[in-house]
């Protein structure tokens, strides 16, 4: 989905969200919390990618099962032995722990998948821009250089083949390597020559004249501040309950999982609410749009 409501927020808000989601995803091993994480990240991942991503999401299932079943093989701790093989025990606790490990693993893949889609290169450098303008400029220039070089390499290969210097008629690896090296050589001198112009163009536009500032295309709006506040509050609640043991889960050698009841429900709701922020924003936008459309 191209016009994701969450991606439209200030990149700093995006980064804050992912830091929270990913940190707690790793720290909280409680099955219910993991399940909540997978649910929220899966839904958001689907919203971002659309139908194309269903295949990727389904791929998570065999991965999940594999890690779950594999864990007891390397980890033999646990009190309930299900069966033994080659004199090694295969325990129930290790299997359950495997479920938690697999869930964390899948959760990380999903959150980082979303992260990659939301925080594009320019957003990252934009955030860096204020802290380290020169470093962020360097990153930007690298982002530009790579596709440029690839495109030029393609051009050179095409040109060389149309004067009969391509790899088409050559069979030996040595010849192919040789022509590959030639292409790299041309690319290098081409890039060097271009970089002279680039540096002229930079200096001509005052690069190095004074301390650089960094242009922010993104502005912190009221929505951004409100959301930041909400996120910080929810995180605070989660931290409070986590610190008081409301989210503890131990698997080895014995199962000891804190049940979610009484006050602990508040911690869970806060966590789920936090993770669902991107989805809620998208749903809200659709509803708002439909309402305003019906008024037209």
């Amino acid at each position: 989905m191209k016009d994701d409501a969450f991606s439209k927020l200030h990149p700093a808000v995006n980064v804050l969200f992912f830091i929270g989601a990913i940190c707690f995803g790793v720290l909280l091993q409680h099955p219910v919390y993991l399940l909540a994480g997978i649910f929220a990240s899966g839904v958001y991942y689907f919203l971002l990618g659309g139908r194309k991503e269903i295949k990727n999401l389904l791929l998570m299932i065999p991965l999940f099962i594999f890690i779950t079943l594999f864990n007891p093989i390397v980890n033999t701790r646990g009190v309930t032995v299900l069966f033994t093989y080659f004199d090694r025990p295969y325990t129930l606790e290790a299997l359950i722990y495997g479920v938690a490990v697999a869930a964390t693993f899948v959760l990380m893949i999903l959150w980082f998948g979303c992260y990659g889609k939301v925080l594009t290169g320019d957003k990252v450098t934009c955030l860096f821009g204020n802290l380290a303008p020169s470093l962020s400029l360097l990153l930007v220039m690298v982002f530009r250089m790579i596709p440029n070089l690839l495109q030029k390499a393609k051009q050179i290969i095409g040109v060389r083949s149309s004067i009969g210097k391509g790899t088409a008629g050559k069979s030996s690896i040595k010849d192919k390597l040789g022509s590959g090296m030639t292409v790299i050589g041309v690319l290098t001198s081409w890039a060097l020559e271009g970089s002279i112009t680039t540096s002229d163009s930079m200096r001509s536009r005052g690069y190095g004249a004074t301390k650089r500032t960094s242009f922010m295309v993104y502005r912190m709006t009221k929505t951004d501040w409100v959301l930041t506040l909400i996120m910080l509050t929810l995180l605070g609640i989660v931290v409070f309950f986590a610190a008081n043991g409301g989210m503890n889960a131990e698997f080895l050698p014995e199962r000891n999982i804190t049940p979610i009841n009484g006050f602990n429900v508040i911690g869970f709701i806060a966590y789920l609410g936090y993770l669902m922020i991107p989805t809620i924003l998208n749903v809200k936008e659709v509803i708002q749009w439909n309402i305003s459309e019906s008024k037209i």
Partner: protein
Amino acid sequence: MEHFRIENLSFYYPTSKDKKSLDNVSLKIEKGEYIVLCGKSGSGKTTLLRHLKTVLTPHGKRTGEILFNGVSLNDTDNREQSSKIGYVMQNPDDQIVTDKVWHELAFGLESLGCGQKTMRSRVAEMACYFGIQDWFHRDVAVLSGGQKQLLNLASIMAMQPEVLILDEPTSQLDPIAASDFLNTVRKINTELGTTVIITEHRLEDIFPYADRAIVMDSGRIIADDTPRNIGKLLYEQNNPMFTAMPTPVRVFYNADGDGDCPLTVREGRAWLNKEFEIKPQIAEIPCKNIDDDIENPALSLKELWFRYEKDTPDILRGVSLEIPKGSISAIVGGNGAGKSTTLKAICGICKPYRGRIKVFGKPVNKFKSGELFKNCVSMLPQDPKSLFVKSKVSDELAEMTKDKNKINEVTETCQITDLMNNHPYDLSGGEQQRAALAKVLLTEPKILLLDEPTKGMDSFFKETFATILNKLKSQGITILMVSHDVEFCAKYADRVSMFFDGQILTTETPQNFFGSNSFYTTAANRMSKHVFKNAVTAENVVELYRKNKGGTV
């Protein structure tokens, strides 16, 4: 008030101690002037322009002084120079620093340490003025050459310069983008009063509007006058730079016209109207019709269909074309229409998913690998640099063949004998093109494909290049070129084909083709259409003019 004042500036590059690159140049540039600097390649135009900005000034020995706003340029600090003197270079791609359009627009302002608020309003202002809003958030990689150069101009204008220096800004652009770009420059000059100093090959678009034209030759200023007087002066001196003048100027002087010299097509038409108030007796250039049936074509394309990716639109939509042996054929047409793709398809760089290509009657896929490019087909790419792999021109040629005689023959044909020891990157655009042509010719092609051969060439080099092409034609080589340069095609091609909407629509002789068009045609034709039929080159118009005047007098 004077903006720039150059006093007795002389300059030597460290590598050539005895040859002055600038020889005693003195020049005053007033505020708000529009100045065209012209001269052959290597006459010192770029060297002079680069002296107008300290960070770009080349290393070497220098005497004389440059004053900017009455203060020596060396005493003007870098920050002031950066914002007040804008400099646009030739290559649109390499000048761009960042990966996003918005970031590039802000680059100069970031360097000057501007605050967010200033940057925001300046960037917005520039994006609107230059019509960039629609592609503000795009990657620079997806822009066309014309858009890139416009972005370069906009990002400099965001710093609100007082002077804009442009060094052949449109040499890498197609004519429509070039003309758009130059119109924008003129708009900046007239609407904002920014001083403009520009060097250009394509004088037709700027010459009539310039306040002054300055002609340079071997590092010296040989003329500094209004454009109208410059034309006269160059004609009287029999200066080779005269070939670069706009068509109306060349026609006027070559035909020995009386009165005021026309600079634009409109003035040219008015002048011809006055001269031929009575209809001229001989009003047509005789021209043959083209043979539609070609026996044993050198190259035949039948119903080629091609697209780059599965879900992108078709680029070639049924291209059919036959090229007779030993002719120069040209394909003209808009940007991105698929002209270059057609050449790539012939070379096998692109594989059409439908259709047939036959070379001398034999389908291309029947050629064994590599066989097609031995003594048969060869292509000169759009960017000659992509062909150079060695550090010397002589090594480049030696890569293709070991036969010394062949190399000598080719270097003579392409007139690059003096350049053999240079690094290919050190050559000028026209020289690079000839060195690349020499390299391509060493495959001894029977069919030579040229992709935009005149891009970045000045008018003088174009003539040299045309003589080379004619020589190759007389040796029996079939030439097919793809070009935006209608003037060049009109003058030198035997057949012109129009490419539109992924197909070849018509194929005609240049006289018939351009003669029947009213927009997509040469300046000479637009100027003379109402009096002469089929006069498509300046030479055609002069010929008819003289015949008629000679007859009546």
